[in-house]
C-alpha cells in the first residue's frame, strides 16, 4: 500500500500545511517535527479524518485508488487503515475486552495474528475485565495500541503512541512494532517528536517544520547528516547497517561486521549472516588519535574525519566515515583543539560498548 | 348485527343523557355511544366530517349553523331541553335568592358568555346589578364554572340547575333563577342521517320516560311552562 499525498491546506488564522509526499509501501515512515509543525494534521488528512475546505487542495491516492480529490472522498472506515491517536480514544461504554472485541469484529483484512500474543506484548491480561474509567494513563494507551493491532489494518498510523508509556513497556512495544511491520509487511506512519524513538524505529523519514517538509529520505542515509542532528543535543545518533559475523555465547555477545570492523553487541537471537541495524548515539562516541588499550570499551573503529559542525556551543559534532557508512561523535571543542583534529585525518572512534543498541533487543 | 349510533352531546347534558340511554338500551338492540364535549368543539368536528349521527348541543346557534350549511337531515333540528340557571352559594347561612346577588362579595363564577350559552344567560341576569364588590371569574363552560364553586375557589356561581340537582346539593344553598330574568337557554339537537337508530332515539326522547328524566334533572321541557 503506497500512499501519495499532495496537500495544500490552510488553517485559520496562520497555519499552512504544504506537503507533497509518498509513504513507502514497506517499513516505518516517521513524521518528525516540533510541536505545532503539522504532524497530526497531516496524519489525520491521510486517514480521512479531516477533509479540508473547498479552498484547500488535497489529493491523496493509495496505489491506484484515489482516496481524496476534488470529486472523490473515501471515508476513513473504507481506507483500511488503523490509527492510534495522540489522546487515546477508547470507547467509555465498553470494557477493555469490549473495546478489543469492537476491533476484532471489524478487521479490515483477515490476519492470522495471535490475539494472546498481542495481550502478552502489551501486558493486557489483567486489564481485560476493567472498565475504561478504571485504567491508568499508560494502561489506556496500551489498550488503544492493542485495539489497532487487532484490527488488521493494511497500514497503521500512530500519533505519538508512546508518550505515556513507561520505559519497560516501551522497550517491549518498540521491537514488537518493528517486527510487526517486517513480518506482516504492514507499513506504518509514525508521528513523533522524539528523535530517539525515530532513530530506533524509522526506515523512512519526513521532517516537518511549520507545515513544510524540510528533509526526507531513507533513515540510513539521512541520519548521519550533521544538519539533522545538530539541533538534537544528546539525542543525536546515527543508524548503521551491520552483518552478524559470529556469536560468543560465554559473554552473550555477538560480533557484527561493520564495513570490515568488529562491533560487539548482544544479538544472540539472530543468525550468522543476518543484516542488522544498529543505533549509535553521537554522545557515546569518543575519538582517540592512537588506538586505546586497557579500556572497558570493546568497540573501536578506525575511521576518517569528514567534517565538523559549525556552532558556538561548547561541543561539536564530528562526522566520521568508514567506507560507505558514517558515524557521528559529539566531543567538546576543547578536545577538538587539544587533539588538533582535522578533516581527512584517520582517527579511532571508541564506542561505549553497550551503548550500541539494536531495535530488536528484548530486555 | 346491531346498529351503532353515535351521539355527540354537550358536556352539561351528558349525565342526563346517560340515564336516558340506559333506559333505552334495555328496550333496543341499538348500541348508543356517547361523545361528550364542548358544543364548539363538537361543531368543528362535525363540520370536518366527524362520524356522529346526532348532535345534542348546549345552544341553538351551532345547530342552526349546521342547518344552513346543509350538514344535517333536513327538518331534524329541534329543542330537546331548556336549560335553567341556578345561583349556588355553598357556604351560605341565609336562604339564597335574588337579593343575595346584590350583596355578593368575593369571586362569582359564571360561564364565559362568549362561548357558553349559560354564560350568556348569566350575563343577562347580572345586567343592572352592582358588581363592584365581586370579582367575575369565568369558566370556559358551565362545567368548569361548577368546579370553581365546588372546589371553594369561587364563593358563588351561576351554574346549571341540572348540575346542582345531579350533585344533590342542599336545597337551601342554591336558588333556581327565575326564567323571566334571562332569555331561555334552548338546547337543540340535530340528526345527521335517517337510520333506524337515529329515528328510534329521536322518538324515544319525547316519550314520557325520557322527558321525566330530563325535567327531573333540572331542565324545562320545550313548550312546557315554568314549574
Amino acid at each position: 500500500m503506497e500512499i501519495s499525498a499532495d496537500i495544500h491546506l490552510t488553517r485559520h488564522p496562520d497555519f499552512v500545511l504544504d506537503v507533497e509526499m509518498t509513504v513507502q509501501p514497506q517499513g516505518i515512515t516517521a513524521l518528525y517535527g516540533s510541536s505545532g509543525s503539522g504532524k497530526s494534521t497531516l496524519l489525520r488528512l491521510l486517514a480521512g479524518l479531516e477533509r479540508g475546505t473547498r479552498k484547500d487542495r488535497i489529493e491523496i491516492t493509495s496505489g491506484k485508488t484515489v482516496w481524496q480529490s476534488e470529486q472523490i472522498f473515501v471515508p476513513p472506515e473504507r481506507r483500511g487503515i488503523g490509527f492510534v491517536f495522540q489522546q487515546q480514544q477508547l470507547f467509555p461504554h465498553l470494557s477493555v475486552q469490549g473495546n478489543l472485541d469492537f476491533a476484532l469484529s471489524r478487521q479490515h483484512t483477515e490476519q492470522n495474528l495471535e490475539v494472546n500474543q498481542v495481550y502478552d506484548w502489551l501486558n493486557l491480561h489483567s486489564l481485560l475485565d476493567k472498565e475504561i474509567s478504571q485504567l491508568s494513563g499508560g494502561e489506556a494507551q496500551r489498550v488503544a495500541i492493542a485495539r489497532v493491532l487487532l484490527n488488521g489494518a493494511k497500514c497503521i498510523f500512530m500519533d505519538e503512541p508512546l508518550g505515556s508509556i513507561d520505559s519497560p513497556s516501551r522497550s517491549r512495544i518498540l521491537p514488537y512494532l518493528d517486527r510487526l511491520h517486517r513480518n506482516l509487511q504492514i507499513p506504518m506512519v509514525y508521528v513523533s517528536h522524539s528523535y530517539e524513538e525515530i532513530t530506533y524505529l524509522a526506515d523512512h523519514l519526513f521532517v516537518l517544520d511549520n507545515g513544510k517538509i524540510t528533509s526526507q529520505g531513507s533513515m540510513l542515509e539521512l541520519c548521519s547528516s550533521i544538519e539533522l542532528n545538530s539541533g538534537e543535543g544528546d539525542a543525536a545518533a546515527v543508524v548503521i547497517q551491520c552483518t552478524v559475523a559470529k556469536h560468543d555465547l560465554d559473554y552473550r555477545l555477538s560480533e557484527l561486521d561493520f564495513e570490515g570492523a568488529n562491533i560487539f553487541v548482544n544479538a544472540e537471537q539472530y543468525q550468522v549472516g543476518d543484516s542488522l541495524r544498529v543505533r549509535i548515539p553521537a554522545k557515546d562516541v569518543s575519538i582517540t588519535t592512537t588506538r586505546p588499550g586497557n579500556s572497558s570499551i570493546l568497540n573501536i573503529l578506525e575511521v576518517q574525519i569528514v567534517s565538523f559542525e559549525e556552532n558556538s556551543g561548547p561541543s561539536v559534532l564530528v562526522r566520521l566515515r568508514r567506507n560507505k557508512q558514517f558515524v557521528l561523535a559529539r566531543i567538546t571543542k576543547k578536545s577538538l583543539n587539544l587533539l588538533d583534529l582535522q578533516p581527512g585525518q584517520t582517527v579511532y572512534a571508541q564506542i561505549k560498548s553497550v551503548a550500541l543498541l539494536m531495535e530488536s533487543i528484548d530486555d | 348485527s346491531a346498529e351503532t349510533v353515535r351521539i355527540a352531546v354537550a358536556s352539561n347534558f351528558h349525565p342526563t343523557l346517560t340515564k336516558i340511554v340506559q333506559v333505552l338500551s334495555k328496550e333496543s338492540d341499538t348500541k348508543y355511544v356517547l361523545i361528550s364535549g364542548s358544543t364548539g368543539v363538537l361543531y368543528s368536528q362535525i363540520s370536518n366530517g366527524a362520524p356522529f349521527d346526532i348532535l345534542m348541543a348546549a345552544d341553538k346557534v351551532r345547530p342552526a349553523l349546521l342547518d344552513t350549511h346543509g350538514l344535517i337531515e333536513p327538518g331534524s333540528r329541534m329543542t330537546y331541553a331548556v336549560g335553567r340557571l341556578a345561583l349556588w352559594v355553598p357556604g351560605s347561612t341565609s336562604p339564597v335568592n335574588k337579593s343575595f346577588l346584590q350583596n355578593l362579595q368575593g369571586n362569582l363564577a359564571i360561564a364565559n358568555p362568549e362561548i357558553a350559552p349559560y354564560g350568556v344567560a348569566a350575563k343577562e341576569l347580572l345586567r343592572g346589578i352592582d358588581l363592584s364588590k365581586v370579582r367575575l371569574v369565568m369558566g370556559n363552560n358551565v362545567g368548569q364554572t361548577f368546579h370553581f364553586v365546588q372546589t371553594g375557589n369561587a364563593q358563588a356561581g351561576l351554574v346549571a340547575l341540572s348540575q346542582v340537582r345531579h350533585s344533590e346539593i342542599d336545597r337551601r344553598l342554591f336558588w333556581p333563577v327565575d326564567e323571566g330574568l334571562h332569555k331561555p337557554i334552548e338546547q337543540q339537537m340535530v340528526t345527521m342521517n335517517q337510520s333506524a337508530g337515529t329515528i328510534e332515539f329521536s322518538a324515544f326522547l319525547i316519550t314520557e320516560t325520557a322527558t321525566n328524566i330530563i325535567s327531573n334533572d333540572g331542565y324545562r321541557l320545550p313548550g312546557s311552562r315554568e314549574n
Partner: protein
Amino acid sequence: MIDPDLVSLTITLKLAAVTTFILFLIGTPLAWWLARTRHVAGFLVEPLVALPIVLPPTVLGFYLLILFSPNSGFGKAWASLTGSTLAFTFEGLVIGSVIYSLPFYVQPLQVAFSGVKQDLLDAAATLGAGPVDRFINIVAPVCRSGFVVAGTLAFAHTVGEFGIVLMIGGNISGETRVLSIALFDHVETLEYGRAHLMAAGLLVFSFTLLLIVYTLNRWQTGRSSSLGSGS
C-alpha cells in the same frame, strides 16, 4: 362487559407506544442531523421542530382537523389513497401526537448527541465502522440517558396529551377515547369519585414505570462510570 376506562387505558398505551416508536424512527435521525449539521438548513429546521409547542394543543388540533378534513387537499389525497379519512381514527391521533411530541423527543436527544466527542467517532471509523455502525454501537450507547429522557418525555407526554386528541380524535370510545379524555370527561360530568380513582391509578402506574426506567438508566450509568472519576 369491559370497563370503558380500561379500554381507554389500552388505547392510550397503544397510542403512546406507537407515537414513541415513530418518533424513535424519525426523530432520532432528525436529532442527529440537527446536532451535527453545519448546513444552513439546520438553522431553519431547528426552530421549526420546536414550533408545535407554542401553539395551544387544541388550536393545533383544530388546524389538523381542517387539514384532515376531506375538504382539504391533503385530506382528499389521503382519502383517495387509503379509502378512509384521518380525522377521528387512531391513525389520525398518531399523526397528531407525533407532531406535537416531536420537539420533546428531538430536543433532549439533540443535547445528548452534541455531547458525543467527534474523536470517538473518528476512532470508530478508523477501526472500520461505517456511519450506521458508528451510530448504533457508539453514539446510541453513549447517549443512552438522552434516549431514556427523550423517550420518556415523548411517551409521558402522549399519555397526558389532551387538546389535540380531543380535537381530532372525536372521543370515540374504543377507538380514539384515550385516558386523558376519559379522565377529563369524568371531571366534566361530575363523576369525581371515578376521576380521583383514575388519576391516582394513572399516577401510580406512571410513577412505577418512570421509576423502573430511570433506575435502570441510573444503574447502567453508574456501572460504567464506576465509583471514582478515574484518570
